[in-house]
């Protein structure tokens, strides 16, 4: 095909250098053409609308959007809003604990499953299964389990420990930790799958060499295997962080915002103020703050990781 085309080109224009045919041009440009629409759509619908939300956060929009610039008044009223600070604190607690517990549990389960046990495939499926549930189902099921009158507390009391209490769900101070429990239960299996794949990709010869040197298994794990899982840690962190920040349906199903608004998160705050309470400007300001938080964490991390990759 190529030679025929260039022969044609050669026949058409008697020039010294061979001219590129239309087919060549198309073939070179094909990837750009295919990705073009997707890129354009992402540019408009993701970044364009982020900018639109940012603009709305500087206006006085209430029930419907308005576009006159109104300064920083929405941010001032956001930072003076008690419920916002409860939501931010909850995000820090929930996000931190959720990511830490998922990674710790995920790594532990992956290491245990990696020991060439018999029913590995079966156990792997069981641990991964919770991820297949939607957050609404998880939230509702855990709401019943953690309900003092119906679930775990009642079960243990009926087993004979009549003084046992586990009323975190209805306790304003502890309700956010129930969200951590339900979220970690759902996502640990997924992190386990990531780590398992990473573990399977480690070169056996390094481990054998370390064993020859006389290192014990825990030492091998701590000094060789875990550090070489660095990219997996990074991916797991990004995915878990985005799940944590996006958490809306889990909170709504499990606690509905908690007793009062004690388990509110920025996502539920934004929905309540942006849509239910006809305060779109304030909701937009809270959305921009959420994005800034994500950017502050993710951008330096990505920069350092990509720089490391380029160097090494």
């Amino acid at each position, binding site marked *: 095909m190529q030679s025929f085309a260039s022969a044609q080109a050669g026949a058409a224009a008697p020039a010294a250098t061979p001219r590129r045919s239309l087919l060549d041009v198309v073939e070179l440009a094909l990837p750009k053409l295919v990705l073009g629409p997707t890129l354009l759509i992402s540019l408009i619908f993701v970044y364009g609308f982020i900018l639109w939300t940012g603009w709305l956060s500087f206006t*006085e929009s*209430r*029930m*419907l*959007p308005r576009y006159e610039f109104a300064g920083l008044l929405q941010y001032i*009223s956001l930072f003076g809003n*008690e*419920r916002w600070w409860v939501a931010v604190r909850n995000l820090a607690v929930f996000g931190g604990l959720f990511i830490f517990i998922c990674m710790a549990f995920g790594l532990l389960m992956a290491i245990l499953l990696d020991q060439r046990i018999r029913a590995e495939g079966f156990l792997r499926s069981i641990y991964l299964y919770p991820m297949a549930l939607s957050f609404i189902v998880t939230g509702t099921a855990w*709401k019943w389990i953690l*309900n*003092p*009158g*119906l679930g775990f507390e009642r079960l243990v009391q009926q087993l004979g420990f009549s003084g046992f209490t586990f*009323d975190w*769900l*209805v306790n*304003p101070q502890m309700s956010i930790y129930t969200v951590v429990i339900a979220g970690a239960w759902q996502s640990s299996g997924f992190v386990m799958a990531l780590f398992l794949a990473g573990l399977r990709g480690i070169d056996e010869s390094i481990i054998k060499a370390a064993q020859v040197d006389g290192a014990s298994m825990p030492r091998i794990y701590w000094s060789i295997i875990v550090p070489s899982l660095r990219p997996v840690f990074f991916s797991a962190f990004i995915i878990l962080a985005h799940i944590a920040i996006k958490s809306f349906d889990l909170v709504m199903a499990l*606690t*509905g*915002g908690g*007793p*009062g*608004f*004690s388990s509110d998160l920025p996502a539920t705050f934004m929905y*309540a*103020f942006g*849509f*239910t*309470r*006809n*305060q779109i400007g304030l909701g937009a300001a809270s959305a921009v703050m959420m994005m800034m938080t994500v950017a502050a964490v993710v951008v330096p991390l990505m920069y350092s990781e990509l720089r490391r990759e380029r160097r090494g």
Partner: protein
Amino acid sequence: MKQSTARFALTALTLASTLAFSAFARAGEVEVLHWWTSGGEAKSVAELKKILEAKGHKWKDFAVAGGGGENAMTVLKSRVVSGKPPTAAQVKGPSIQEWAKEGVLTNLDDVAKGANWDGLLPAVVSNVMKYQGHYVAVPVNVHRVNWMWANPEVFKKAGAKIPTTWDEFAVAADKIQKAGLIAVAHGGQPWQDATVFESVALGVGGAEWYNRAFVNLDASALNSPTMEKSFATLRTVQKYIDKDAANRDWNLATAMVINGKAAMQFMGDWAKGEFTAANKSPGKDYICVPAPGNKGAFTFNIDSFIMFEQKSADAKDAQRALASSIMEPQFQEVFNLNKGSIPARSGMSMAKFDQCAKDSSSEFESSAKSKKLVPSWAHGMAMPASAQGAMFDVVTQFMNSNMTPKAAAEKMAAAAKSK
């Protein structure tokens, strides 16, 4: 040659007749946004559809379930912003005025004058339906919010009397708790907390103070000793709520009263539907009385449809037909029989309604005369959504922490300033 001309003639005739018929069938189409998706509610909407179709218009249902209307309102905003509003939408309270201010609603004065709406609705109600003196919305029903639903068996077992004041309430609730039963069935959701608080505040402060505080948002009425006393009384009520109440749905709390596990619930008249569905009869298995201190006062929650400006003449006709049908006696009776509320239109025969509805209807008229007919702020009838949401936060925070009544009153005054 002959065949082709014959075929051409036949095609032309068919096309012409389909066009003619479609023009005939193109009576106006009515697209109505609502969130009445549960059993009794859906039946009521079906009635409106039947009436409208009998008048020759098409009904396009636009039901958006869930959230007590939150999802529907979000959908409505996106429709209006994109320039294609529905014919009518289920919006109530000051939101009607907010929508009217955007300039997207139509003027219903011609329908209103023709059917004498001013004469058929109390002034408190018709003012909510108007913007700058012109009708922009039509009321469908009247719910009463300040009811107390009680199980007389539980009271008899505990040897307690049905309370008519908040002091009597504490005495009765103590007796019920000593008998090992739950005194107040409640669900710890912000709107339910606010519903109880609203009845408490009205009972403690009276209708005149209630209007100054929650309708006029007067700071001196909000941050006042009366407000502190209301919160202190709410604390007392809270003592008699069971500890599993957090995030419980309202109908599960009603079930506690139906099953005799709890003595009373402070809830609007939609709770009656639960009793009826459980085959309980008023007066025998359950009684409906005004909440303590609320005798003679009526807290109303009126569902209404706002009408959006339509472009085509057919749609305008259909919209006018919808507006007038809603206020007609036929629809008002059938709808409210199915839903458990009372007609918004006055002067209707209440013969087919049950005793609680009859009581509700007579109190509606008497409270309008004695100026004790007040809008329910917990159900979006008295103040804009931003202030209402902020006050919800205060009440629910109060019930879930050891906030003092004084701090709560100060926060209420601050909440009223929310924009």
